[in-house]
């Protein structure tokens, strides 16, 4: 349970970090919070030859809140994002989700952007990025680009980032005040990765649902976003929410693994979706 040897690099600017990534190529790995990377290094599931520790790049520690978006720097710790009252007001689902991410000691070190690019299919924050229609800002020595959430996640622990690219920030759009969100999951132990998880977003104006979407995690190899807007015809109070939940999960095809059977995961998804719908329908 000790990592194999590597060479340590500690750049103090994004420019330096990108230069190192370019020079060292695929043998290098970026270290931010390390709460996913170091366990797999300890278990020797990963053995990068070079570690680029970005923890001293202060320009990456910023949280910026505008009228229309929240931009989270690559070094923002989960705990700092979770306790930021401006973020909680602008995009409430971020703080709602972070309460489910591991434990306080992990959240104190782990970063939200790191969790997103780690792209664990059972993790909450990739699903939150998908639900909010967010983007990831990545950079390399040749320039910057944005990757939309629906193009970012391509498989378990796999993203569409290219070699030499580093995540700089994640951007979460701010919804109108009429948006209601919730996130819920079932895990074997509190703080563990989810067996099944649901993040729900309803935009409700005068009792009518203008738009609705649900993002599932731990139910496929990537977060699954389902648009439910068409299911909400007429006033919210009169709807059969169980029927909406049944439609929402109809396209899911979870797989068996050592933690749960596919049928159990699907049942969890259906039940959690129904509960989330009920919760948001009752909310004022």
């Amino acid at each position, binding site marked *: *349970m*000790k990592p194999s*040897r590597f060479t340590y690099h500690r750049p103090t600017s994004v420019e330096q970090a990108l230069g190192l990534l370019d020079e060292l190529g695929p043998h290098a790995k970026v270290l931010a919070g390390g709460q996913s990377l170091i366990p797999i290094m300890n278990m020797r599931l990963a053995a990068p030859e070079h570690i680029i520790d970005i923890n001293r790049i202060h320009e990456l520690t910023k949280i910026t809140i505008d009228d229309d978006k929240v931009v989270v720097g690559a070094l923002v710790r989960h705990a700092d994002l979770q306790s930021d009252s401006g973020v909680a007001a602008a995009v409430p689902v971020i703080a709602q989700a972070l309460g489910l991410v591991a*434990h306080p000691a992990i959240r104190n*070190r782990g970063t939200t952007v790191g969790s997103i690019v780690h792209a664990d299919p059972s993790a909450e924050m990739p699903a939150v990025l998908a639900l909010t229609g967010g983007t990831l800002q990545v950079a390399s020595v040749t320039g910057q680009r944005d990757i939309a959430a629906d193009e970012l996640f391509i498989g378990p622990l796999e993203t569409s980032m290219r070699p030499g690219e580093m995540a700089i920030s994640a951007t979460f759009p701010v919804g109108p005040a009429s948006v209601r969100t919730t996130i819920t999951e079932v895990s074997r132990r509190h703080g563990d990765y989810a067996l099944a998880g649901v993040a729900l977003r309803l935009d409700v104006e005068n009792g009518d649902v203008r738009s609705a979407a649900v993002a599932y995690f731990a139910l496929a190899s990537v977060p699954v976003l389902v648009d439910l807007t068409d299911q909400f015809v007429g006033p919210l109070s009169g709807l059969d929410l169980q029927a909406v939940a049944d439609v929402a999960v109809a396209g899911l095809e979870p797989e068996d693994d050592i933690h749960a059977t596919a049928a159990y995961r699907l049942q969890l998804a259906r039940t959690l979706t129904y509960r989330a719908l009920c919760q948001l329908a009752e909310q004022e």
Partner: protein
Amino acid sequence: MTDPEVRYDITLNINGTPYEISVPARRLLSDAIRHDLGMTGTHVGCEHGVCGACTVLVDDRPMRSCLMFAVSAEGLSIKTIEGLAGADGSLHPVQQAFRDCHALQCGFCTPGFMMTIAAGIVDNPAPDADQAREMISGNLCRCTGYQNIQAAVLRAAQLASTAVPR
């Protein structure tokens, strides 16, 4: 292995004292504390961040020392279980509470719990029973069944609120 492993000369600030050590990049903070510095109060359980036994305070926040490299910890202020009691040997409120509530049996997990709770009752000086459970949810104990540890959280908060600040 052919070439000797490159070592890095670093200074770790632990319990207010700077320590100069020479370590390979892959040295975990937990191992630097235990092996290089001989402070064996910090325990190592799972080495992948699940059990919480290795929890130390980094800039006053509880973190897993098995999930940090010692080289990354340069310049940060680290507090271990050895630094919890007062300089005169007086017990920290958390230590006193563990004694009062019989919150340990074998003691292996105890340093991690104590560091977690020491920071937890600063964040939340008056936790209720649910908040106490949430506070210790990231630490595993295989002896006590947690009831007495939960009681110790409440007792520690009570003791800390009446203690003379040091």
